[in-house]
């Protein structure tokens, strides 16, 4: 059962940060789609809930060809999915959002909440890391920007300091000849993934790989880059065997754990298959 709590409802970001600094046993709630579950299970029972859903300052999507994409923390999954400019410039984000939970959940859940929750099975993080995203966080004292891949520390643990909120996600402008792909592997349509893989590939003028990123979801405590496989790709031409090799490395380097949903062995196998498939897909997108 959910414990009794005191409800704090700031109207502005400033107010929110002040309240957050002031109250000790305080949890932020935004869409509640993840928080309410852990509260119901009795895993946490905070004395205060700080509801930032109404802090409209953080509800925005901005795009600029030079600066890239900026998404405020309280922007819902559904808003991202429906935003045409994102569809045009970062289609992989939209296809990822399309398969995140159900429409009902996407209408409530926010990008800030999703990243702050730091579930290793979360969908947005691997994709955003493959797109080299940053995250801006801040507290009453000021804000800072860090690489998203450095934001995740452990299972459900982030680099947020006490009193800090997620403010914004920033994705650099899309590079020419860059393609990205993401797939989660789930047993039920639109469920959380058992495992997932995101890949991005940037080609040079000769059609060879200039840059690549492989980021795995639910393959360890945090979203996991497979740098050994990324390096393997640099300078190489399109080659299915290469993708298979990268997949093999991914299944070796990942660190999934077994649970009731899947064994460790099967997860490793799936991560290899997905890596191979996503690289191929990303590469083909980069070419077209």
């Amino acid at each position, binding site marked *: *059962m959910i414990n009794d709590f005191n409800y704090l409802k700031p109207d502005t970001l400033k107010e929110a940060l002040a309240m957050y600094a002031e109250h000790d046993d305080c949890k932020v709630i935004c869409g509640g789609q993840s928080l309410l579950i852990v509260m119901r299970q009795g895993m946490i029972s905070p004395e205060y809930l700080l509801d930032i859903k109404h802090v409209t300052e953080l509800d925005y999507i901005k795009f600029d060809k030079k600066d890239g994409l900026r998404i405020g923390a309280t922007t819902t999954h559904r808003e991202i999915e429906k935003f045409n400019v994102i569809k045009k410039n970062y289609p992989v984000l939209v296809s990822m959002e399309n398969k995140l939970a*159900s429409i009902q959940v996407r209408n409530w859940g926010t990008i800030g909440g999703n990243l702050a929750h730091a579930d290793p099975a979360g969908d947005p993080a691997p994709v955003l890391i493959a797109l080299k995203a940053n995250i801006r966080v801040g507290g009453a004292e000021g804000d800072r920007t860090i690489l998203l891949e450095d934001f995740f520390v452990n299972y459900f643990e982030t680099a947020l300091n006490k009193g800090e909120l997620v403010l914004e996600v920033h994705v650099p402008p899309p590079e020419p000849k860059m393609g990205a792909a993401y797939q989660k*592997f789930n*047993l*039920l*349509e*639109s469920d959380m993934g058992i495992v997932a893989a995101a890949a991005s590939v940037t080609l040079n003028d000769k059609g060879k790989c200039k840059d690549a990123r492989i980021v795995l979801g639910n393959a360890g405590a945090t979203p996991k880059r497979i740098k050994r496989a990324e390096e393997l790709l640099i300078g190489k031409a399109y080659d299915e065997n290469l993708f298979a090799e990268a997949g093999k490395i991914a299944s070796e380097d990942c660190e999934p754990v077994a649970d*009731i*949903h*899947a*064994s460790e062995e*099967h997860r490793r*196998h*799936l991560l290899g*298959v997905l890596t191979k498939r996503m690289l191929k897909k990303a590469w083909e997108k980069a070419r077209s």
Partner: protein
Amino acid sequence: MFIGRDIDRIDVLDKVLGKPIFAYDLKVEGMLFGCIYRSKRPHALIKKIDIQDALSLNGIVKVITHADIPGENAFGAIKKDQFYLAGDKVRYIGEPILIILGESEKIVRKALNSIKVEYEDIEAIYDPFSSRDSTTLIHDTGNLLSYRTVIKGDFEQGFNESDVVVEHTYKTTWLDHAFMETESGIGYMDETGKIVICSSTQNVHYKRKEISKLLALPEDRIRVIQATTGGGFGGKLDMTVEGYIALSVYLTKRPVVMRFTREESFLSNTKRHPLYIEYKTGAKKDGSINAVKVNIIGDTGAYISYGETVCLRAAIHATGPYEVPHVFVESRMFYTNNHISGAMRGFGIPQVAFAHESQIDEVALLLNMDPLEVRMKNGLRRGSLTATSQLLTNSAGFLETLKKIEPFWKARKKQGLHTGFGLGCMYYGIGNTGVSNPSSCYLTFTDEGKIAFHSGVCEIGQGSDTALLQILLETLNVEERDVVLLRGDTDTSNDAGSSSASRQTYVSGRAVYDAALKMRKYLKSKGYYDCETLRGVCLLAKEEGLPVFEGFFDPPTSPVDSKTSQGIPYATYAFATHMTEIDVDKATGFCKVKKVHASHDVGKAINLKNVKGQIYGGIAMGVGLALMEEFVPSKTESFDSYYIPTSMDMPDVEIFIVEDEEPTGPFGAKGLGEPALIPQAASIVNAIKDAVGVRAFELPCHIERLKALIESEKDKWVE
């Protein structure tokens, strides 16, 4: 005309508007919250129970033990072997020991943690084979609950005459009903001193009987009402909250509410019986099945519930919808210290259908025949003798269901790399097995000049209210607005039996028809069909002291022989054929169910929309049974660890209806609720074989199992 019309369910508008109050949401002024303290041990003697800390909590009103029970501490649908509250011994994790009552849910749940029970463990038995061989007894009567056999012809001769023999073993596991609404209800004492229970249930009269024994009160001091119920599937046939609420109201004289959390529901509710099925089929060169030998071993868990029913039903249906001259089936159900298995949509038949449908495909493969042709050749039809030597004289449309599917089967074309097509067929006896299972109802008039339809049938989402009403309207030739339905209340209805065994449209439908015929005669005598209005007839009826028209039907069956099970276990059977198309991703083991063609002989489709709704739901459950659903004792706690298909996982479905009318049914109708599910898993398993060449012998054939099967066969074939 009301029969066969696609009319909307009478509850549909209210339900989409969110108006009905489900049992879970019921409230009464001043109610106490009740929670059950359950055993944490699978098999143990209770040495000591310490409730002092719980009692000292502010807001805790009472803790009830077995010693507080005024009547019998025993219940059970078939035999009264289950204890409401354990006294000296517990037999499974989750067995109720105490009821805690308090002023709020929060305080009561807190109190659960302050109960201390000292146990002395006994060796626990977790599977039916150990149970068979163990000297540890779960009940004094021994560990074998039930042993049934079906013997027809001479199976040894049958196999000697056969040209090919196929022999395999099949295994299934526990499944949860996963109804949307967990077990819940309220109770209170009304102004006359009656104890009233309003709960989420599949039956009311049965529960009133049980409560009367529990409280040692006459039945007329107890009233059971069915609240709007969020699903049953067999899981709300047994006593769930009702006895506990009644006992609590009796002892405290205060209103009481009980609602199970999802975790509690998973822990405490009955499950689908895991069956272990050894199956041997002998066939002749021409494809005719000549002999079948089956050995079924089941795990009923710690108590009986419907274990005996499943044991017998599975045995009787083991040959599937085929005429087999030589049959020998043994079926055994053992006690274990696992969760109680009970009634769940199909009573064991979805499990045996998985086996017989796999077998028939393997026979076809060996004989190099088309699987549909083999089914057509052996299929039950008018004039066939079933495995219990029952002569089918009417309503046996199995071949018609095959014929509806045949053009699609012939035109099937593999589009993907690993596309597969599979058939699954079934027959299912409607109603209880070889025993009387009557239904009664009555009709009269209201003060407002309407027809009062008093029905004891529980509407659990299957649409019985609408179907029964259609039968009534058709027979009386009146309009929906002329009728008031008073349903699911022991004070205002007669016993219609449970909403189970796909029996309500058939059995209760016929009872309604019977009552309606009597009322029609009366209406006619008062000139209703000439010029008199209904209101006018009602006024006349009032003067005559409101005549009551009772309806009754008990399907004509005979008890089956105790050794051979030969006889007439069911008055009528439903038949079906499903054809399923799937795609397998060989690299991952993922199986996508793409399309199902489903063809059902329902006798008569009283309401086509309802018929389709049942089939969609049955297919969804079949997809779960085949590919995902698996309750793992001590591991599965909630939906987080129990996969069931969502609407987004549904395949496309195309439905074909066969109406081979059943003369004893209302307007020719039979039943459909369980048949909709039964052949689905089997058809998926056969489609997997077609797609990637491997056969699943264990359900669910979830992704890892399928991947392992594909790996194990890898060297045997070329990609």
